């Protein structure tokens, strides 16, 4: 339901929007790579198939059935983040980004938990490796309030299932504190930070990217620290070093600390589909 509304959203926005085709290709790629990686990695590690298999699906090999049973929301959200935030000169970039995202998800792991946010990894890897072909457009979404509102609602929907929504709020609050603080320090009118907060790209980043339940710290206080560190690094990159895509690098760097935060602040691991 949430995802279908997002699809509708994709269809009607602006001039530099990705076409539905781009989304379909990316979504197909993320799901396909998710299944492939699960198939091979599960096989190699001979993780037992889950119980509760329905009889009429018995003809499907265990690994594939497992993969299919796994919630496909995760690869879909990855695809959505990739298409919403990454811009490319060539369409083949998107399957590549999808592959990189999924590869990071299944191969870069600590204690059976992937470190990097898959979509963020895909975006950062492409930005670093193919600077002549890709870019991100932080201004693309403009600052229309209604759009912000819609995204907010949709975001809340996604998060209410993921139950890790607090991190998006923590992040936005940290970001707001930083840019309002900056405006006060500079003596700028508050219309400037308000304008900045209404950025659609910021909301997409907060609600669809960093809130990925699998790559955020398990304990809520860990998530609070995590969110603040992203905001701080992103702020420094953006305002001090003029790196427009600063928040993506900030998330990438901060993800490296997640295992540490988990070690210090223990809590239940998140699992898709379990609440």
């Amino acid at each position, binding site marked *: 339901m949430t995802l279908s509304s997002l699809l509708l959203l994709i269809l009607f926005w*602006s001039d*530099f929007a990705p076409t539905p085709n781009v989304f379909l290709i990316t979504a197909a790629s993320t799901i396909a790579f998710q299944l492939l990686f699960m198939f091979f990695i599960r096989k190699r590690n001979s993780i037992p198939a889950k119980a509760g298999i329905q009889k009429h699906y018995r003809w499907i090999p265990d690994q594939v059935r497992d993969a299919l049973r796994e919630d496909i929301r995760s690869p879909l959200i990855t695809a959505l983040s990739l298409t919403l935030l990454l811009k490319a000169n060539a369409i083949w970039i998107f399957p590549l980004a999808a592959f990189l995202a999924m590869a990071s998800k299944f191969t870069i792991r600590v204690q059976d938990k992937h470190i990097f946010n898959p979509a963020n990894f895909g975006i950062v890897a492409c930005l670093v490796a193919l600077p002549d072909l890709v870019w991100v457009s*932080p*201004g693309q979404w*403009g600052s*229309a309030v209604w759009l912000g509102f819609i995204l907010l609602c949709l975001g809340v929907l996604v998060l209410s299932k993921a139950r890790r929504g607090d991190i998006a709020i923590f992040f936005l609050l940290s970001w707001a504190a930083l840019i309002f603080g900056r405006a006060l320090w*500079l003596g700028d009118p508050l*219309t400037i930070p308000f304008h*900045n907060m209404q950025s659609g790209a910021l909301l997409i980043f907060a609600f669809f990217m960093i809130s990925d339940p699998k790559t955020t710290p398990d304990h809520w206080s860990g998530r609070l620290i995590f969110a603040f560190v992203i905001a701080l690094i992103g702020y420094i990159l953006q305002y001090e070093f*003029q790196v427009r895509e600063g928040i993506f690098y900030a998330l990438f760097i901060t993800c490296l600390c997640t295992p540490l935060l988990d070690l210090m602040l223990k809590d239940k691991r998140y699992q898709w589909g379990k609440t």
Partner: protein
Amino acid sequence: MGENMIRFFVLLSLLLIPNAAQAFCGFYVAKADTSLFNKASKVVMSRHDERTVMTMVNDFQGDVKDFAIVIPVPTVITRSQVNVTDGKIVDHLDAYTAPRLVEYFDEDPCAMRMLEDSVMLRSAMPQAAVMAEGVSNAKALGVTILEEYTVGEYDIMILDAKQSDGLLTWLEQEGYKLPGGADKVLKSYIKQDMKFFVTKVNLEEFEKSGFTNLRPLQVAYEHEKFMLPIRLGTLNADGDQELILFTLTKEGRVEPTNYRTVKIPTGNDVPLFVKDNFGEFYQAMFTEAVEKEDKKAVFLEYAWDMAWCDPCAADPLPNDDLRELGAWWVDSPDDEEIQPMPRAGRMIAPVPAPVNVFVTRMHVRYNAETFPEDIALQVTSDRQNFQGRYVMRHPFKGAVSCEAGKEYYKALPKRFETEAQSLASLTGWDVADIRNRMSEAGQDFDIKPKTDGRQWWERMWEDE
């Protein structure tokens, strides 16, 4: 103490004049004679790596002694980093990137042929600001004059200030009236470690130069900041300001990162009377587009590889002019390597060298409320071509004798209606008025097929 008024950067008040029809395929299309956009400025920015060259054009109409500008710059600008250039180069860039009207002539539906023509829209420019003489107790006020020199007809000072009130006091002591709110904005720039580029006209040099207009002023610097300061300019503007920003890059399109980019409507079929009113049309259309976006967008008018154009509103700029505008990575003819001689027996067609300059033309209408923040820019690798292009289709007017010809005439009123509706939605003009103007211009909604008046048997036996 003079009563000079300081008017701030973005300077520049600009008139967008649909000027000079460039003949295309030998067809003349009339120019519109009304000035279009008031209070607008024209800026060219070249950017590659962290090198920026900013060219500010001004068409200051008042007494040149009243001219002065204050521009925040990210770094100290020394004498050799400033240049004055020929306004014609920017005019050329303006013409090359201008939104264009293309004209097609329907063929005889009973035969076939086509012609094309174009009109372009050209912006003319800005007008700027003011400052007087003298360096007094600058130091005491915490104002440091980092550099002071004359380039062409301009006297330039680079100021570093510790406190905005000191800077303000100093400028006021020098005889300038500052718009309200300037201190806050200056303070913000001071805290961001920006320097101030302060310019006035050196009257002696101006007279010596023999020019009647002030020439564009250019600044080159190397800094990671890639932005256009607009905040000072919004302070004393009554109402909206207009800015045309041209960028030259090696990689691709430039876009703002803190405002949305919207492509202006393009490719629409418009009625014939637009030809003589292209300026009026474009202005109305632009206003309509701005309103639709709540005045909060930057409009893309042109994005193209400088090596070519289609249709061309003006020829692409020669390499020397591109270098003059700051595209330092372009080969000048002197640097060109000597091409190896073609081997005997092989024909090599002359291929124009790749220019490697991507031009973007953005158009912004802004005020302090809708554009509270300076425009932050980024170079993207987007090399997709885009142009503002409007199409006029002249109906075939001759006599027709075939069935297809009659069908053609029958379909015309519907086509005219579509054009009228399209124009109405683009410009917000009343559709009934549009229909009237179309009829007056010869697009008759009751058009009847023209025949040569002969009966079919007369035509059948005409050769006998």
